[in-house]
């Protein structure tokens, strides 16, 4: 087993046959247990990068290796099993609004066939770790945006994945809630989970001691530890 959780080798991706490339000749690696921010303006390729890791899309060219497995070798029927190893957090939360918080968080465990008592234990532990213990019986829509996102995070970590990827997890949250969510990610990273977060909340993550990968028009522009080369904020603040 390599000590890299993610390796991109000259990866290009293009939507459709004629669209402009979303990613061009991208190479980057992420160490096991590392926490990395992917930044860049809208359309810079952040989402594409995460989609490729989650096998929501396949690269047009190049090689992606996650946890020692070349993603090209994963057949369509094996994709669910692969995704079960990764925790995914979405900007839009993607909760099932007709189910309680408990049932939402339990879903990945139900899919994997966990025992009933083990599910209850793990769901409570996951909700506790995001500070939502006691909200198990609530329905997602009765919660605030920040709470909903923390339910989403609880669901993504309830299976104890080795890799957590988050696409704009704070995109719908105000700065204070955003900071809370980032702190939750940091806590998981401290216990050994590799965390990759795509975000344009550059002001927020500047204060955090983690590596940033900056994308610009689908190319890597800066892959240096924070502090070595301050990244200029792109012109459009909300873009």
């Amino acid at each position, binding site marked *: *087993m390599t000590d890299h959780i993610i390796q991109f080798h000259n990866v290009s991706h293009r939507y459709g046959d004629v669209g402009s490339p979303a990613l061009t000749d991208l190479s980057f690696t992420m160490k096991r247990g590392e926490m990395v921010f992917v930044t860049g303006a809208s359309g810079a390729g952040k989402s594409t990068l995460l*989609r490729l890791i*989650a096998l*929501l*899309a396949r690269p047009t060219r190049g090689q992606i290796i996650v*946890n*020692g*497995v070349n993603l090209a070798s994963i057949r369509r*029927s*094996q994709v*669910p*099993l*692969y*995704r*079960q*190893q*990764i925790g*995914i957090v*979405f900007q839009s939360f*993607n*909760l*099932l609004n007709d189910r309680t918080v408990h049932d939402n968080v339990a*879903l*990945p465990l139900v*899919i*994997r*066939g*966990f*025992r009933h008592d*083990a599910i209850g234990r*793990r769901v409570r532990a996951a909700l506790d770790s995001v500070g939502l213990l006691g909200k198990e019986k609530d329905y997602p829509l009765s919660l605030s945006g920040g709470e909903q996102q923390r339910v989403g995070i609880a*669901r*993504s970590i309830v*299976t*104890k*994945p*080795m890799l957590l990827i988050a696409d704009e997890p704070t995109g719908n949250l105000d700065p204070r809630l955003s900071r809370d969510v980032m702190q939750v990610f940091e806590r998981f990273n401290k216990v*050994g989970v590799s965390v990759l977060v795509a975000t344009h909340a550059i002001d927020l993550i500047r204060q955090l001691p983690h590596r940033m990968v900056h994308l610009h028009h689908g190319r890597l522009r800066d892959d240096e530890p924070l502090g070595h080369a301050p990244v200029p904020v792109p012109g459009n603040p909300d873009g």
Partner: protein
Amino acid sequence: MASAPAAEDKGARLPWLRRWLLEHARVLVATLGRLSREPVSTFLTAAVIGITLALPAGLHVLVQNISAISYSWEGTLQASLFLEDAVTPERGKALVRELEKRQDVAKASYISREQSLAEFRELSGFGEALDLLADINPLPAVVVVTPQRNLPQERTQALMDALAALPEVEVAKLDQQWLERLYAILGIIERAVLIIAAMLALAVMVIIGNTIRLEIEGKRDEIIVMKLIGAPDSFIRRPFLYTGLWYGLAGGLVAWIFVTGATWALAGPARRLAGLYESSFAIVGLDAEATLIVLASGVALGVLGSAWTVGRHLDRYEPG
């Protein structure tokens, strides 16, 4: 896959067979619970399926009953025994007395060659032509035998065999041509019922498939979320298959209720009619075997219909 998810605690997951059974039991109960929370729409769907299934089941019951009635008419049949030319009228009359002692014979009567000729002359309209034959009477003496009423078919057949084997009898003929024709017609109807059943089975599959398609569309977001968090297709498919199963079973039950109710409603008039014919005929509904077939085909069509739909629609909803 390179490795299992990190830090999987021991014993948290069940052995696969128990996991599989429990998961199926869970979905079975969960889908029933969900359907019972929408009783009206569930009932309406079940009623449509039930009516569709009730049609072939009802036709089957009808054919069964017509067979039973026509069968009971066999008791009113007559057998004609054409006697050898050498048998004297005295011997013929003696034969009649012997036959009337048999348990399975209700009545027997002797028709001499002369009576036969006179009857034929009268009925056929060949009177003049027959006069040309002068003294030659081509007709044999006949013993007409009426078997006991409601004799089972084997015993009727046994009686006919016994009569045909008598040394005095040249040919024994059961007057059942019309009955054979009726049986042939019933055979066609039975085949037609099968064809109708096959077509309506397709209709049931379409009904269930369409209902399931609407449910799939209603759960579009849920399916996408499920796929995103790594649910295998079988896991996503399962609730829809069990929903189809419940619809099919409920439809089968409704069909059973319809057919049983119809036979129950017809039982009184049928008994009265049978009484007029001095018949012991009583209408029969779906027996245990037919009931089982109705329910089982409901279930099978439900599962098939939803599997067919889910297979076609699930791939449409891919995350991303």
